[in-house]
């Protein structure tokens, strides 16, 4: 838990700097805006945290966002009720994730390669299914998922926080969570302790796929359109949030609390740079720099705690 305080301090320092730099930053409306803008990457980053905790990586989440969105749109256009269409999207996301898991555990492919393949397959699938065109025209009731609020808090934020709450519970209190840490910490020792490593690893990729699909539903609701080119580069933003949040790419240590803070740091940074009128080109450079600095600091801390850094 100490590790997350460092990340939180980073977030607060960043907020303080922006508060001093611009009067527009610290307003309720803007802060809610920042959090709302962070929800999409935030939800994907939860799944990514699970994957990275097992010492894996998932490059396909952005493409899965597009494919499950398009699958939902297609199902809706074919006459399914919106609820059933959304379930279709979720099922497609879960299936893609489980396919990743199967390739990694049964096919013994490195996660990088398996999910790189899936990244291209899901993107291509989304383009084929939609013929490259967005699928629009949903009911107001469905769009309320993105526009509505609960006690003044935007619904996407409520959904994201609920997912973080559940994920934190799963990781800290359940067997699935413990096994996730154990597999990432030492897969061989986990296997020798009788853990069904392959099943749990597959499940973790399934979770990542499912949460990508959840994100895609929120995105479709926000845009009122399912787009085959949605979610491009989401995987990298999600990985960045996880890593800034202090989860080790070596697996075995980290938390979703850190990831939430990491996602917020990314959101605050984007928002602040916008408010300061920094060009979007320079923003890319700045965000890249933050990722690198965050990991450098993390490694320095680990060395001090005499934990492995490579």
């Amino acid at each position: 838990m100490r590790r997350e305080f460092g990340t939180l301090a980073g977030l607060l320092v960043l907020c303080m700097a922006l508060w001093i730099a611009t009067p527009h930053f610290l307003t309720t409306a803007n802060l809610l805006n920042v959090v709302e803008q962070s929800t999409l990457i935030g939800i994907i980053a939860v799944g990514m945290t699970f994957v990275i905790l097992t010492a894996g990586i998932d490059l396909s989440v952005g493409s899965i966002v597009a494919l499950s969105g398009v699958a939902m749109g297609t199902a809706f256009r074919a006459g399914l009720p919106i609820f059933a269409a959304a379930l279709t999207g979720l099922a497609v996301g879960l299936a893609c994730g489980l396919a990743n898991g199967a390739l990694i555990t049964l096919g013994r492919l490195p996660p990088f390669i398996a999910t790189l393949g899936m990244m291209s397959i899901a993107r291509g699938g989304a383009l084929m299914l939609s013929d490259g065109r967005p699928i629009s025209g949903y009911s107001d009731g469905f769009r309320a998922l993105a526009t509505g609020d609960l006690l003044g808090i935007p619904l996407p934020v409520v959904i994201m926080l609920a997912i973080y709450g559940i994920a934190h519970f799963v990781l800290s209190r359940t067997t699935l969570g413990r096994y996730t840490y154990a597999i990432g910490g030492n897969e061989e020792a986990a296997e020798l302790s009788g853990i069904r490593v392959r099943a749990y690893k597959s499940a973790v990729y399934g979770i990542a796929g499912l949460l990508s699909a959840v994100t895609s539903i929120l995105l479709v609701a926000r845009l009122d359109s399912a787009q085959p080119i949605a979610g491009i580069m989401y995987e990298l933003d999600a990985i960045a949030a996880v890593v800034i949040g202090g989860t080790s790419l070596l697996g075995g240590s980290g938390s979703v609390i850190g990831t939430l803070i990491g996602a917020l740091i990314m959101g605050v940074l984007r928002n602040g740079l916008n408010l300061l009128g920094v060009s979007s080109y320079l923003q890319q450079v700045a965000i890249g720099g933050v990722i690198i600095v965050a990991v450098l600091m993390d490694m320095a801390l680990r060395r001090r705690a005499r934990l492995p850094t490579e």
Partner: protein
Amino acid sequence: MEGIRKEFPGVLALDDVGLEVESGEVHVILGENGAGKSTLMKILSGAHGKDAGRIFLDGREVEIDGPRRARELGVGIIYQELSLAPTLSGAENVFLGREPRRLPGLVDRAAMEEAARAILDGLGAAFDVRRPVRDLSLAERQLVEIARALSLDARILVMDEPTSALTDREAQALFDTMRRMTSRGVAIIYISHRLQEIYDVGDRVTVLRDGRRVATLDVAGSDRRELVRLMANREVDELVTRRPSALGAELLRVEGLRRAAELRDVSFTLHEGEVVGFAGLLGSGRTAVARALFGLDPVDAGRIQVRGRPTSIGSPRDAIRSGMGLVTEDRKRQGLVLSLSVRENISLPVLQSLSRFGVVDARSERELASRYATDLRIRTPSIEQVTLNLSGGNQQKVVLAKWLACHVDILILDEPTRGIDVGAKQEIYALMERLTAEGVGIVLISSELPEIVGLCDRVLVMRGGAVVGTFERGVSQEEILSSAVGVAS
């Protein structure tokens, strides 16, 4: 070295330690884990800085500010934790960073391999120096590490437990090499847990305890019990014994176990309260038996019966379900999840039974972990301590606790006391006695002949994947060794 002091956060690792080593001697450093041996050597070799103290070489004070400086001064070190590049060959590792060149930037591979071959021949090692290190056994890797240090022509060579993974024959070859080196004036600082080795190779011995020097003695005039007492500051019975238990029902029957060239028709039985020992040289098939029993390697043929019932074991999970536990020889790589706490490691195999609907009952988990941590006297500030920070002996106790918490009735121990201090060893022997008294059956694989002779009810000697000799309690070390190497006694 004079007045050396080193503090780590929260621990005073070395307090005013002095050490004098003369050229041409083998100076043994003795001490339990955590006594400060490794830290002292890391300071000498430049891996750690010191907080106070001075180092003299040939009477002149020197400042060793890094491994490179140490090497220039002629200080070579072989670490206990192997530090080789796994994908490079043995020869490449020996000459890493100092490859013989034909032209600038062009490695003279043939010369390099020949030179590596020559050094390894001198150590009595016969493996192919062109093979990648990751394909070599632990013992072979250790020999590569030793060859690397030898190739440096060091004037002072530090060896940190170099024989812990070697067979007796390999160790003897190493001792011969050490004698040749000292006769050329090289000083060797030798760290070991094995008391016998001190008498095999040592000239003088310095005993460290809790970061202080307790004594420096001539080996010739020292008494074994005296050394143990100095080290532990308490009377430890160095003798390895276990009171035999009454044997109960048959727990395990293995018939005709075969696997390629590794296992050739291995059969044995294990009863309640019995310790069956597997002796043999490295690579004789002892570990292959354990791996096959535990479902890690598929077998070509063979039947396994647990409590009289035919059982098929295809995975560690199956093995655990039929009541087995395995303590592997490499506890860091296979036994523990080092990034998890003592509590989380102990509960790992039984987590399901501590959970309802996948949610772990935190309180019963804590109770279980504390109970076994107390029971096995695991020395840790709390059960929430990450196992990475524990000493070797305490890590091994965590692995044992894990299986005790499962209530296994067949416990397979593969080199359970490797690299752990005398006190912890005795505790493990006592634990074996207690478990067998409770009816647990133990399969013990060990390269320590005193353990095989002192702890086992029955000893199976393996050679080339087959059981070549079976002995009852009371067998001598010489008989077992003769059988293992294939010499008629």
